[in-house]
């Protein structure tokens, strides 16, 4: 079992959701979040402004959390990759983090592991 965490641009949320649903990945968690990565630097040129270092602004992003069984990992990743990009890929389009997941427990029934996802 893996946990996929994707940070994407807000305007791509619906496109990503639709592609995931087409790939039969329907169980996702969506959070509004903010952050900064290369996007900020590309926009502003540098973190230095007239010799002073500037703390980058927080930019709005969307975070998707998808817990899935191993065989669905690549399907989910390729769905996000093809739908979250602006044109052929732009700075700020986001990142995907993949982490090992120890356990998954469904609260309603107490099921654990593969079945609970």
């Amino acid at each position, binding site marked *: 079992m893996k946990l996929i965490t994707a940070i994407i641009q*807000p*305007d*791509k949320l*619906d*496109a990503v959701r*639709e592609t995931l649903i087409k790939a039969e990945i329907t169980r996702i968690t969506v959070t*509004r*979040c*903010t952050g900064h990565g290369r996007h900020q630097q590309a926009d502003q040129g540098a973190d230095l402004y007239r010799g002073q270092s500037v703390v980058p602004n*927080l930019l*709005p992003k969307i975070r998707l959390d998808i817990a899935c069984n191993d065989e669905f990992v690549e399907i989910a990743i390729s769905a996000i990759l093809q739908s979250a990009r602006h044109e052929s890929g732009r700075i700020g389009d986001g990142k995907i983090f993949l982490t090992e997941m120890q356990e998954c427990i469904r609260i309603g029934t107490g099921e654990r592991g593969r079945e609970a996802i």
Partner: protein
Amino acid sequence: MNFDLRRLSVVGVMVLLLCPALVMAQTPDSQLPIDSGATAWMLTSTALVLLMVPGLAMFYGGLVRTKNVLGTMMHSFASMAIMGVIWVSVGYSLSFGPDILGGFCGWNPQMLFLHQDHSAIAINNATSSIPELVFAMFQGKFAIIAPALIAGAFAERVRFRGYCIFIALWGLVVYCPLAHWVWSGTGFLLTMGAQDYAGGTVVHISAGVSALVCAIYLGARKGYPQTAMRPNNLVMTLIGAGLLWVGWFGFNAGSSLSSNFDTVRALTVTQAAAATGALTWVIIEAIHHRKATSLGLCSGILAGLVAITPAAGVVNVAGAMILSVLASLVCYVAVLIKIRLGYDDSLDVFGIHGVAGIFGAMGLSVLLRPQSAAELTLRFGPDWSITHQLLVQGSAVGIAIIYAAVVSLILVLLVEKTVGFRLDITRETAGLDHALHGEHGYGLLNLQ
């Protein structure tokens, strides 16, 4: 102080001498005394009707998805800007000028840019008057809200540029002629005997029908009706509906163009209709779904208010209550039918404004208060009957429906084929706020 006044009056006289048009605008009407009470109420009503536009922006804005909240509210606000400019430049003249083109619309070069600041119009059976400008401004607010209403039918899926051009054209070729037919002294619907107190035909039926045409022509939103498209903020929708209710007192009671018993009666029936409509809708929902929703209550308020709009001058309180109970019922069914038929009138402009407008305009014939019926008998002779009035109302409504539908179809085609009206699928998915306006409606609550 004295010096300032003297200097001002000298400047005033010079301006008058330099502009023959201004002197000519001092028509004999201005010999009638200005009714200061009526003028004050008309000024208030003008402000109240304008308040309905931000009210409508909030009502519609709360009903769309988060990504479209600004784009949707912009539709209402853009109408304030666009119709605001059109009305003071040519709109008033097109609507209330003397007949041209065989009464198709009005026109009077003297009325362009509203410089008749010393002219007055007669009210109260020509015993007193109000300044013409307050009438022109009052009417201008109606011209703003009518096109803004249409926007709900194609919410979340149109280009801003196309929308702006569409409402400008719609205001000029649909709204102004209709206003001329119904409200200018020589309009053929008025002389025919059609009763439209505060714009049931001109505002609600025309906007509702045009909305239906646009919604069908432009097609449904991506994902409709399979995807749930839930309102982003019903709190805002409730406040918007409340502002509409408040503003409607100006809309209906202001349409008496006076400050007397007629005014208060229009206000009273408006209040009764809104409350009854709201209550009815909530009861229907409670029976049908076992839950009374806030959106249902708002829809009932609107159904009641729209239905009473053409009737506010001619029914009594009981009549208003009957009218709005039935209007809520009919609109409730209309919204259900829409879902069956599958066209995407996103915020039910036709289902509420169109249907309740038509229902109110027809229904008033059977609910006329005795005095209004007597006045109509006096005017049209002993042959006058309720059936006769129903026929007159029916033909006025029919003319408005056909005219609004045909011209709107031509306009929406024209705009779509030239500048483009329907938004492309990528930008529709991204949302109007980001794609068209480069903004977003809500900040994150905890950050930034």
